[in-house]
C-alpha cells in the first residue's frame, strides 16, 4: 500500500468512526446507561425526584404486595397467553387458506392487514364504540329480537379482557399471517407433490409436515407477538382506561401512572425492572435459537 493510499484508508476509517458516534452514544447512553440507571434507582426510596438513598428490596416488597400490580400481572398473563395462541393459530390458518391458490388472494390479504397500519389508539376507540352497550353490537342483537342478549365486555370485570383481545387480534393477526404466508411460500412445491402421491390428506400435511418445517417462522412470530404483548399500553388507554375498576390494568400502565401521576418513582422503577426481567426470559431463548450453534456471517 502506498503512503497516499494508506493515509486515505486511515482517513476513511476515521470518517467511519465519526459517523458511528450517534450509534455508539445511543447504545451506551440510552440502551445501556438508562437501563442500568433505572435498575439502580429501583433500590432507592425515590418519590417525586430521584433520590440515591439505598433501601434495598423494599420497593419490590411493596410492589408484590400491591393489589393493583398483582392484577396487572394476572391480566397480562391471561391476555398474553390468549394472544399468543390465538394469533399463532389464526395467523397460520389464514395464511394456509390464502395459500390454497384461491382467487382474490391479494384483496383478502389487504383486508386482513390494513388494521395493522392503524394506531392502537384508533383500534381501541373503534372497538370501544362497537362494544358500546347502549349503541353497539349488544343493542343491534337485541333489536333483532333477542331482548335478553347481553354482550357488554367493556363494563364487565370478568369479560373486559375479551373485549381487549378482540381488538388486539383485529389489529395484529394480519402481521402474523403475512409472516406465515411468506414461510409457506418458501416451502418446496415438491413436498406437496410428494404428499399427494402418497395420498396424505391436506390437513395432515399441514399439521405434520409443513408446521415442523416452519419452526423458524414460528419463532420469529413468537418473539414479535411477545414483545408486543409486554408493551400493551395504548390500546388499554384508548379502549378501557384500565377499567372497570382495576380489571384491565396492565404493568406498563402501572409504571407510567407511578412515574407521572402518583409521583412514586421508586415503585415505577421497580415495576419496570420486573418487566425487563420478564422480557429477558423471552430474549435469551430467542438469542440461543437465533445465534447459538451457528456462526454469524
Amino acid at each position, binding site marked *: 500500500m502506498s503512503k497516499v493510499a494508506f493515509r486515505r484508508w486511515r482517513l476513511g476509517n476515521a470518517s*467511519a468512526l465519526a459517523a458511528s458516534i450517534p450509534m455508539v452514544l445511543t447504545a451506551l447512553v440510552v*440502551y445501556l446507561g438508562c437501563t442500568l440507571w433505572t435498575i439502580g434507582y429501583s433500590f432507592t426510596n425515590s418519590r417525586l425526584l430521584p433520590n440515591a438513598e439505598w433501601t434495598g428490596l423494599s420497593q419490590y416488597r411493596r410492589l408484590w404486595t400491591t393489589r393493583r400490580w398483582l392484577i396487572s400481572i394476572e391480566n397480562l398473563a391471561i391476555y398474553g397467553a390468549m394472544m399468543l395462541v390465538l394469533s399463532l393459530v389464526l395467523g397460520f390458518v389464514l395464511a394456509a387458506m390464502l395459500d390454497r391458490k*384461491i382467487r382474490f388472494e391479494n384483496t383478502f390479504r389487504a383486508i386482513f392487514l390494513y388494521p395493522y397500519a392503524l394506531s392502537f389508539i384508533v383500534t381501541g376507540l373503534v372497538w370501544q364504540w362497537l362494544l358500546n352497550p347502549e349503541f353497539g353490537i349488544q343493542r*343491534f342483537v337485541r333489536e333483532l329480537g333477542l331482548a335478553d342478549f347481553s354482550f357488554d365486555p367493556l363494563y364487565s370485570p370478568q369479560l373486559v379482557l375479551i373485549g381487549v383481545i378482540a381488538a388486539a387480534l383485529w389489529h395484529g393477526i394480519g*402481521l402474523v399471517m403475512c409472516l406465515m404466508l411468506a414461510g409457506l411460500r418458501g416451502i418446496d412445491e415438491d413436498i406437496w407433490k410428494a404428499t399427494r402421491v402418497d395420498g396424505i390428506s391436506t390437513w395432515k400435511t399441514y399439521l405434520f409436515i409443513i408446521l415442523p418445517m416452519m419452526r423458524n417462522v414460528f419463532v420469529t412470530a413468537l418473539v414479535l407477538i411477545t414483545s408486543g404483548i409486554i408493551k400493551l399500553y395504548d390500546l388499554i388507554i384508548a379502549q378501557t382506561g384500565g377499567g372497570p375498576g382495576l380489571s384491565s390494568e396492565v404493568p406498563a400502565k402501572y409504571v407510567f401512572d407511578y412515574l407521572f401521576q402518583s409521583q412514586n418513582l421508586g415503585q415505577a422503577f421497580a415495576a419496570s425492572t420486573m418487566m425487563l426481567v420478564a422480557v429477558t426470559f423471552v430474549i435469551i431463548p430467542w438469542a440461543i435459537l437465533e445465534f447459538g450453534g451457528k456462526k454469524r456471517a
Partner: protein
Amino acid sequence: MPDHSISRVEPRGPRPQRFISRDKLFLYGVLIVFAIYYLLPLYVMIVTSLKGMPEIRLGNIFAPPVEITFQPWLDAWSSTCTGLTCEGLSRGFFNSVKITVPSVILSILIASINGYALANWRIKGADVFFTILIVGAFIPYQVMIYPIVILLRELGLYGSLTGLTLVHTVFGMPILTLLFRNYFSSIPEELFKAARVDGAGFWGIYLKIMLPMALPIFTVAVILQVTGIWNDFLFGVIFTRPENYPMTVQLNNIVNSVQGVKEYNINMAATLLTGLVPLAIYFLSGKLFVRGIAAGAVKG
C-alpha cells in the same frame, strides 16, 4: 417422477374447473367471515361519522345513514373540544406533521449511515454496539423513559419537538440500522472495493454509490417510520407539552374526555381522520408496506 405415473397421471395445463368444489366453498366461506370481522369496524366508523346524533340514538350501529351529513367531519377537524380548548383535530394534525417529518428524516439518515458503516467498513468493535442496539430493541420503553426525561431536561429539550424527534430517532435506530445493514451487506463488495481503489472516501461512497442503490430500502424505511411515528401515542404524551400534542394524543383526549355529551359521530370522524394518513400509505404502498413490517423478522 416416472415411477408414480401409473398410480396417478398428472395432466398438463390448468385443471378444468367446471364448478367450485365443496372444499373451496368452505374455504371462501371462512375467508369471507374473517373479512367481515375485519371490515366491519371500518364500515361502522364510516357510517357513524356520516350520521347525525338523533339518527345514532334511534337507529342501529350497522345501518347506513339515512341522511348523510359531513358536519361531524367538519366539527372533528376544526371545532371539537379536547378538554380545555375547542379547536378540533387540525392542530394535532399539523403537530403530527411537524413531529413526523423531521423524525423520519433524522432517524433514517442516521440509521442508513450506521448500516453502511457496519456493513461496508467493519470498524473494530462496532458490532458490539450494534448488538446492544438489537438486544435493546426488546427492552420495554418503560425502563428507559425516565432517565431520558432527565437527560432531555438537562439539555433543555424536554417538551420541545426537537426532544421528541431525538426520542423517535433513538427508538427507531435498532430496526432501521438492521434494515440498512442487511441491505448494504447484500450489495457486491467489489463495487465498494473498486470505489476505494479509485480514491473515494467514506462519504463519497455513501453519497455516490450506496445512496442511489438503496432507494428501495429507503422507501421501505420511510413507510415504516411514517406509520410508526404517526401512530405513536406514548412518546407524544410524555415528551411534548399539550400545545404540541400529536394527533393520536389529541384524539384520545377528545373521545375519552369525561365532560360534556358524547358526540359519537364526531368521535368516529376524528378517529377516521387520525387513521387516514397511515391508511393512505398502506393502500398506496402495497407490497412495500409488507416488506417494511416484515423487516422486524429479517434475520441478522
